């Protein structure tokens, strides 16, 4: 099978060249792996020579071009609330390569950054100008057009929390990650959004826990019901890192630590 790599000047041109058999290569951390392993059916790769990499504040929301790397996020002043999330992805080399756009398509157990975007009411802007809320996007991402940028809410200080649970220190692949946007925290919270990574085929929201947290104070008794319904709607699988059973068992424990803002285990 002949493999072709086509390089375009703009995302729009690359998008116009897309067909069923093609894949878009950005940072390389997903597509190059598949090329190296000659994954069947991958015969046409599209890329853009210098994709945009800007981070812009737009009122209460922050916009990131899809080509922004994890290292860009860590260095950005506007995106400082996401720096701990970006830092949890890979090692330094991977963070210099991996993009925000690519993370949207990372299969389980990857995609911790996307879990954070889901919690922060993320919205995807496609190259063709259409937009889609993150949750709807994730449900059908296999059919999505090229992504141009992503926007998300900018939380106030203390309102956004993120935990990544891994077995290897300081860095390992997720047993799970939890991202939570907690308006009003640590006092009475409202309109809470909680997203789990590595607890299903894509990052998923813990809607039941979100609902019972409405109007609650984030203390032991305030979060009790949320913990008991923490895994409702999640769909973890067995993999080499943890069984679905284990993930379900420990999810409330890690959610409790996040909601009570306890220091993560060393």
């Amino acid at each position: 099978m002949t493999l072709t790599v086509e390089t375009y000047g703009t995302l729009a041109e690359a998008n116009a060249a897309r067909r069923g058999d093609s894949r878009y290569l950005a940072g390389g951390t997903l597509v190059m792996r598949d090329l190296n392993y000659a994954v069947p059916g991958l015969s046409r790769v599209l890329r853009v020579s210098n994709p945009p990499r800007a981070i812009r504040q737009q009122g209460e929301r922050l916009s990131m071009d899809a080509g922004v790397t994890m290292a860009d996020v860590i260095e950005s002043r506007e995106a400082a609330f996401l720096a701990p999330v970006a830092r949890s992805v890979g090692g330094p080399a991977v963070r210099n390569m991996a993009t925000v756009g690519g993370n949207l398509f990372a299969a389980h157990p990857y995609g911790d950054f996307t879990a954070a975007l889901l919690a922060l009411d993320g919205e995807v802007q496609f190259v063709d100008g259409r937009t889609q809320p993150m949750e709807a996007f994730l449900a059908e991402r296999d059919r999505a057009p090229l992504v141009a940028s992503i926007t998300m809410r900018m939380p106030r200080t203390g309102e956004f929390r993120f935990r990544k649970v891994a077995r290897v220190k300081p860095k390992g692949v997720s047993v799970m990650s939890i991202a939570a946007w907690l308006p009003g925290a640590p006092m009475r919270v409202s309109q809470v959004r909680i997203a789990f990574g590595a607890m299903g085929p894509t990052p998923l929201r813990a809607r039941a826990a979100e609902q019972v947290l409405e109007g609650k104070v984030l203390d032991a008794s305030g979060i009790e019901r949320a913990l008991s319904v923490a895994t409702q709607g999640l769909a973890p699988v067995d993999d080499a890192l943890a069984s679905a059973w284990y993930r379900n068992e420990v999810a409330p424990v890690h959610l409790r630590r996040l909601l009570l803002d306890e220091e993560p285990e060393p």
Partner: protein
Amino acid sequence: MSKIPVQFTLNGTEKAVFVDPGANLLDVLRRGVGDLSPKYGCAQGTCGSCAMLIDGELRLGCLTLAEAVSGARIETTGGLQTGEEPHPLQTAFMEGFAAQCGYCTPGMIMAAKALLDRNPNPSRDDVIEAISGNICRCTGYQPIVDAILTAADRMRGRIA
């Protein structure tokens, strides 16, 4: 399958090579231009044994599309030594028993160099974070972390 011409500098020397579409930079450096210092460990970005600097940034050769590095400046452990003089990181690794089988060492040293290029006075945690994408199965990491801290001390002494 038509080959694609690519030009770059490797450790200060101009290189021009024809590459296959989709080829990764690790393969091209090893077989195309004969720099055998970056190693194959996984071809999926998990082990770090092919870590190298591309335009001063730490990257993985196995996940870098070779044709995309045209015009880039590439540095590997193979070019770290100046003449007979080892780099302070190499000396510290030698003296501190920071290598056993040696297979992860070239990538580990480049990850350390990427850190020291930006942060000449790293903490122990900084060093641990900097090599967190490089797996070593022999040493248990402590001698490596110690060696990088030793090298940092010596390099600051040299500059001062």
